[in-house]
């Protein structure tokens, strides 16, 4: 099967991911359609991490020996790779965190403390109804702690942000606008530039959750006009073919310098006296303690791998697979896709409902055929509530997904319908 836009070297790419060779109980081959949850890892990421542990392991920054120097160099080289991956204006603006959740919490926590950007009563924080819980709960905590007010963009029936209220939502009271670039449930791609321009015009800072965007959209922060460039951007390593335990917060130097430290500890200081301490500059100011060294190095290899294939090509592949999947899913009786139906306007995560079968039961039947999908609320309960559904089934593709895997999904959904005897009253 050839589909326009597919990665030309798809067969070779699939060979890079050893797990795709796996068979599951009953000898069925794995069909992995849960990449929005976590992506699989290419051999080069695994090898880079093993090589580091086997040959270069030492703590960074504080070890005055050869291994320490090698380890530090590898860790800082990973920062350079991540900076290049997102086109960061400065490599020191890249902060390593544990995951996207920690990156978002870092921002929402430091805005509580005294500083140039401190949020207080009367201030407003604007989010959206399609956020992952990781971009809702930290802001609820912030508003509870500061007396500020949380507001949000609602959604249209076709799963886009309802921008008709933008003038009422983003006002001179707005201190922060935080939103996802690509929805992990609806797949929607949000107009980041337009919203950032509007927020900047009222002096608010913009935080973008790029957890689902970084895997599939080319990001070039330096190329964005300053008025349209977010101030902070978070993503998580394990969704960009990197390991778990590592995430990224990019922030403009101006904003990061204005935020007080997050966690205190080793490496984040300039000097420590019993009476008080002074802090290191960015990025170290926000990296207290021994970081996930080998995970950061693995992430560096991961983003290099993606950059080598090319994010434009990966995006085209995702669009082609998503379009093909939308078409296939539409052929299943009683199936409703949640979110935009136009493959060009969405990412590669497709949530759907199947009349008469609960998502859990769908996922269980699919699993018996080796097909891995996600069932539940995908950490986006408010977005589900908006569409009056309690949970959904989500398939998500990535650069290694083949059209035949979508065919297998569609066939397995037909089988699910017959298993639950949906055509019999």
């Amino acid at each position, binding site marked *: 099967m050839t589909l326009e836009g597919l990665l030309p070297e798809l067969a070779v790419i699939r060979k890079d991911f050893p797990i795709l060779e796996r068979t599951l109980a009953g000898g069925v081959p794995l069909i992995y359609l849960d990449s929005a949850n976590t992506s699989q890892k290419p051999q080069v990421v695994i090898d880079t991490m093993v090589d580091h542990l086997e040959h270069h392991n030492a703590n960074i920054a504080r070890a005055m020996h050869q291994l320490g120097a090698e380890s530090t160099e590898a860790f800082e080289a990973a920062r350079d790779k991540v900076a290049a991956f997102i086109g960061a204006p400065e490599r020191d603006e890249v902060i390593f965190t544990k995951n996207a959740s920690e990156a978002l919490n870092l921002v929402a926590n430091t805005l509580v403390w005294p500083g140039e950007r401190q949020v207080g009563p009367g201030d407003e924080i604007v989010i959206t109804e399609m956020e992952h819980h990781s971009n809702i709960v930290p802001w609820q905590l912030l508003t509870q702690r500061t007396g500020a007010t949380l507001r949000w963009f609602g959604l249209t029936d076709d799963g886009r942000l309802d921008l008709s209220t933008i003038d009422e939502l983003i006002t001179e009271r707005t201190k922060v606008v935080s939103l996802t670039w690509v929805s992990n449930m609806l797949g929607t791609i949000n107009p980041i530039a337009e919203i950032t321009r509007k927020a900047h015009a009222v002096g608010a800072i913009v935080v973008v959750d790029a957890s689902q965007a970084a895997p599939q959209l080319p990001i070039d922060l330096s190329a964005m006009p300053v008025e349209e460039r977010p101030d902070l951007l978070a993503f998580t390593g394990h969704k960009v073919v990197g390991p778990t335990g590592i995430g990224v917060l990019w922030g403009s130097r101006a904003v990061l310098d204005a935020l007080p430290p997050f966690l205190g500890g080793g490496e984040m200081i300039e000097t420590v006296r019993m009476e008080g301490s002074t802090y290191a500059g960015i990025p170290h100011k926000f990296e207290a303690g021994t970081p996930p060294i080998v995970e950061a190095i693995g992430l560096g290899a991961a983003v290099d791998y993606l950059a080598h294939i090319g994010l434009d090509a990966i995006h085209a592949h995702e669009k082609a697979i998503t379009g093909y999947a939308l078409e296939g899913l539409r052929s299943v009786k009683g199936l409703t896709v949640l979110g935009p139906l136009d493959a060009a306007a969405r990412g590669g995560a497709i949530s759907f409902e199947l009349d008469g079968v609960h998502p*859990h039961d769908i996922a*269980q039947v699919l699993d018996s055929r080796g097909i891995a999908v996600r069932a539940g609320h995908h950490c986006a*309960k408010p977005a589900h509530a908006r569409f009056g559904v309690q949970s959904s089934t989500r398939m998500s593709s990535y650069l290694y997904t083949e059209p035949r895997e979508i065919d297998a999904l569609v066939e397995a959904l037909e089988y699910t319908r017959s298993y639950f005897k949906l055509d019999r009253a």
Partner: protein
Amino acid sequence: MTAQDLDALYQEIILDHYKKPHGKGLREHAGHTAEVHHVNPTCGDEVTLRVHVSDGVVEDVSYDALGCSISQASASVLYDLVVGKSVDEAMAIHQAFLTLMQGKGTVEPDEDVLEDGIAFAGVAKFPARVKCALLSWMAWKDATAQVVAGDGDN
């Protein structure tokens, strides 16, 4: 999991209860009732369940549940098994069901006690689904304890 495992999980009895649940819907009663709302945070399954007890007997269990076939069917079986029993007997049935579900597939269920509930023996082998099967049962225990303790709505 294989196709056979799938059939072990989705016994015909379970699918029948799922399609035609017994006792579903919330009903009003005068006196001794308690209502609870339980949620399975990992999947979002929810149940609102009311227990009505009179003279030490479970007179009614009524419920409104959102969830998968396993959680819906287990609420239906719960209704069949505990309504009309004394609170003590019902608690013993609850214990037998709990033991079955927590037995990782090693417990041999007693059909005299659990009736259709024995169909859930297959579910016990799927750790991810045990919580689904127990959702309404845990809600029932909680509500019943409240009525018995007199915290319910008298």
